[in-house]
């Protein structure tokens, strides 16, 4: 398994492993590791919105929706400590990876549940 640390926001907040970019998303329903490329046509999921009345993430390109709860419970295992996220990817240890920056939509860079309550 591949254990990687990356920033939650700011420089280096996107880690790419085997061509798939991942970011740490902080939605109003909780935080999770988000594959930043939409499985439909590769849209920028890091710019997705969260539906106001449902726990669904909506891709900005063709509005395909996916479950936030599923991402929370079944996504890549991750822990955030301050501005650092550490995730355990299923890839072999030593799989090449690199860090870049991707902007996040307001819905995904926003406050956590605790901050809002």
């Amino acid at each position, binding site marked *: 398994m591949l*254990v990687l640390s990356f920033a939650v926001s700011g420089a280096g907040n996107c880690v790419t492993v085997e061509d798939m970019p991942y970011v740490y998303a902080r939605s109003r329903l909780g935080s*999770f590791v988000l594959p930043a490329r939409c499985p439909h046509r590769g849209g920028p999921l890091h710019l997705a919105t969260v539906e106001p009345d449902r726990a669904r993430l909506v891709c900005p390109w063709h509005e395909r929706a996916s479950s936030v709860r599923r991402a929370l*419970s*079944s*996504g890549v*295992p*991750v822990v955030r400590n301050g501005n650092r996220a550490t995730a355990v990817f299923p890839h072999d*240890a030593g799989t090449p990876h690199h860090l870049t920056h991707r902007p996040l939509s307001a819905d995904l860079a926003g406050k*956590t549940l605790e901050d809002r309550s």
Partner: protein
Amino acid sequence: MSNVGPYRPFELGGADLREAVKRYTSNPLYLDNEEWENDDNPYRRQLRPQVVEHLDFDRVLGRDEILDYENLAAQRILTTIYETDLVFFPKSGLSDPAKWADFTNFYSSSNRVLGEMVRPALERHVFGFLDTEVEVSGKWTKDSLEAFLRTLEDRPQEPSKPESAIRNSSDPERAARMWLIQFAPDFLSEASPMIRNALGYYGEAQSEWFKVIIDEYGYGVHDTKHSKLFERTLESVGLRTDVHHYWQYYLSSSLMMNNYFHYLGKNHELFFRYLGALYYTETTLVDFCRRADELLRHVFPGTVDTQYFTEHVHIDQHHGRMALEKIILPVVEACGEAVIPEIVRGFEEFQVIAEIADEDFARQIAWMDGGPRNKELHAPVWEAIQSGRVSAPVAHIVEPHGELSNTHCHNGDELCHIVSGTMRFVSGFNSFQILEAGEGTVINRNRLHGAIIESDECVYEIHSVGDYEKCLS
């Protein structure tokens, strides 16, 4: 079944909490001391009850407020509450009727119950910020947990901020003594929080847990018990070994490190977090002890007894691996993967607290070393106040000879100005400035300090300037 009505969980807040904290801390055991140090009386701890009613414990302190006075006050109180579960005797015994009275008072049902009532609110006050600092999600499995935890084994270990602060201090011996004092609440009753988890009936991991404790306790041979080794370290550098002799010199974050384990051990719903935190400390302890041994021998060449630290290098080498392979993974096997997020959380939370403590101690050493400079800074800041360029709330104080302001800290910078008389201003163990009429000192935010009046009377002013640097322009 007859209707018994809804279950109402225990809660204490607002004025009730304030009153309860006041009531607990006003026990004669916890009043101010007339001396800087406690003298062979483990039951006496200065909790400064005279100020608790001005503190709002009914909220969660933020990460940026965690070194404020509220935390110091709450950590002192929590240490006292947790330690009524521990047995302490004065080194001179209990034949002195005053000490016997303190002994029975400290362990009395009244003291214990009053403490228990405020404990949950105080724990939330000082540890609640961890809920926002650390967050765990995704699908954790036993394998991903193991991969995650094992990365610690390869993490390069560098000297911590306290170690650099001591090496670079203008008075390394004083700094190193202050450092050893910070460990006393933990090391003299070492492994006591851990023993809280030795009780009960929970399978094989319980016996493995017990083995770790046996190591810490020197296999029942008192001369090898770790607390005994630490006593020898203290004595070798001229420090006392009676419990909480140096109570007033503990930083809030040092108490916090120790209290964190009591908090996890006292509240068994946090048992799994303890596992994560235990793994972290056991795995990093060996390198830490190796560096501590080297540092102490560098500062006190030829005189310091460092066996406490060298012993840990030998014994604890396997504890990290034991914690993982014999305790954590079998517990996950037995309890299911639902407990993993809690283990991960404890592992990270302890690092948050350790980082706070490292930073706090390094800053305290800079503050102690900066005594002469802070005294010099009085002149320009006082000038800014006198000229009217800066206006700040002021307290006018008159105190008699021998009056001791027990140690505390402020939530912003202050200026102390002596109108008449003489004050000994204390900024840490063996660290002080003498302030005469017309003189004074800048007091930095969050820095532990106290004072004693050396003249017949002293008239002085405390100006709450907030940020002293703004007075300098």
